[in-house]
């Protein structure tokens, strides 16, 4: 079966950013996204997700490499200074190229 190379951009951040991030991803050309509720900790402490201000999300976007780069660059410039942000890229293979 034919497969196509794409990037998976994973952004783990504060739930307060969810709506803004999704709008950003759409604006930079991502065609879809997945959001998971997560909890965890980092250099600045733990985020346990027990109540409103303590929630974290993991936003996953499968898209073309250039789109992933543009989103990542934007997230780093716009949010990384003041929000808990963790992001990374991975290579994935998809079956239906037009979807991503």
């Amino acid at each position, binding site marked *: 079966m034919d497969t196509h190379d794409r990037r998976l951009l994973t952004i783990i951040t504060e739930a*307060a950013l969810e709506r*803004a991030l999704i709008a950003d991803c759409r604006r930079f050309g991502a065609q879809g996204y997945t959001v998971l509720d997560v909890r965890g900790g980092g250099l600045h*402490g733990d985020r346990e997700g*027990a*109540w*409103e*201000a303590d929630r974290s999300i993991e936003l996953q976007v499968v898209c073309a490499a250039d789109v992933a780069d543009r989103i990542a660059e934007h997230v780093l410039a716009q949010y990384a*200074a*003041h929000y808990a942000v963790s992001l990374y890229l991975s290579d994935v293979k998809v079956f239906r190229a037009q979807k991503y």
Partner: protein
Amino acid sequence: MSLDPVILFFLLGVLARVARSDLRLPEALYEALSIYLLLAIGLKGGAQLAVQPLATLWPVALAAIALSAVVPLLLFPVLRAGLRLGPADAGSIAAHYGSVSVVTFAVSQSALSRAGLEPESWLAMLVALMEAPGIVVGVMLARRGLAGNSGPGVARRWPVLLHEVVFGKAVVLLLGGIAIGWIAGPAALAPIDPLFVGLFKGVLALFLLELGLVAGGRLGDLRRVGPRLLAFGVLVPPVLGVLGAATGVLLGMSAAGVATLATLTASASYIAAPTAMRIAVPQADPSLSIGLALGVTFPFNVLVGIPLYVELGRRWAG
């Protein structure tokens, strides 16, 4: 007088957390309980609005909005000059205190009933009115201080922030409940009373258990907060309580009304304000404002403040 069981639930939560128990309420339950509490408080208030002449409430409503807006203006200079905080943190903390805590309100209503001063249910309207103004003023103060240095944020534009504050969960559910109660009236609400009135106290107790767990988890923040801010978190509520009580007396409110306005003025938000400040003033350190609001002021008000405000109401308006 014996301790209110809801307070004991809160203490159990704190204790469990401090003792590193594995007790953890599912987040979905927390969410469901908070939706229930906000709706129930709104419904009860709305049902009474239906039988209350609205004209008499205007002065109180306007005073409540003014109090919420004035509190950050009073606290901001203290935080800036007295505690040497930057504009972002000072504005954020001021906003938390300008806005109000729904659960502190609920506990005060329960305390008033136990003290034999049955509170008027329409007082719930004040919670909805006092939620937003303090947040807006706090954000304005922070931004004025950061002028030119406002940095990136999600809600740089006011429409985004106002939408967040006005259509946030707390205000929508409170005002929605009030509207439903008002339109339907007490008789039509009777069939849903077993859920929203009968179970209220028990749900409040469960919610306080959860809040105890959360507040217990913020105790670690207190080390970062430091002794001066800690003193701020304990000294400010009674001072604001007196301000609220005096306003209530001037408006000719009942003893329960005076105590409630004192409680609301003295309380600090931890539902609407933290979320709003996160998107509006991301430079502010949330562990300071939330540590203060939830780790210091909420327990202080529940354990010490509310009995004090009830006594103020009894003496000044009795």
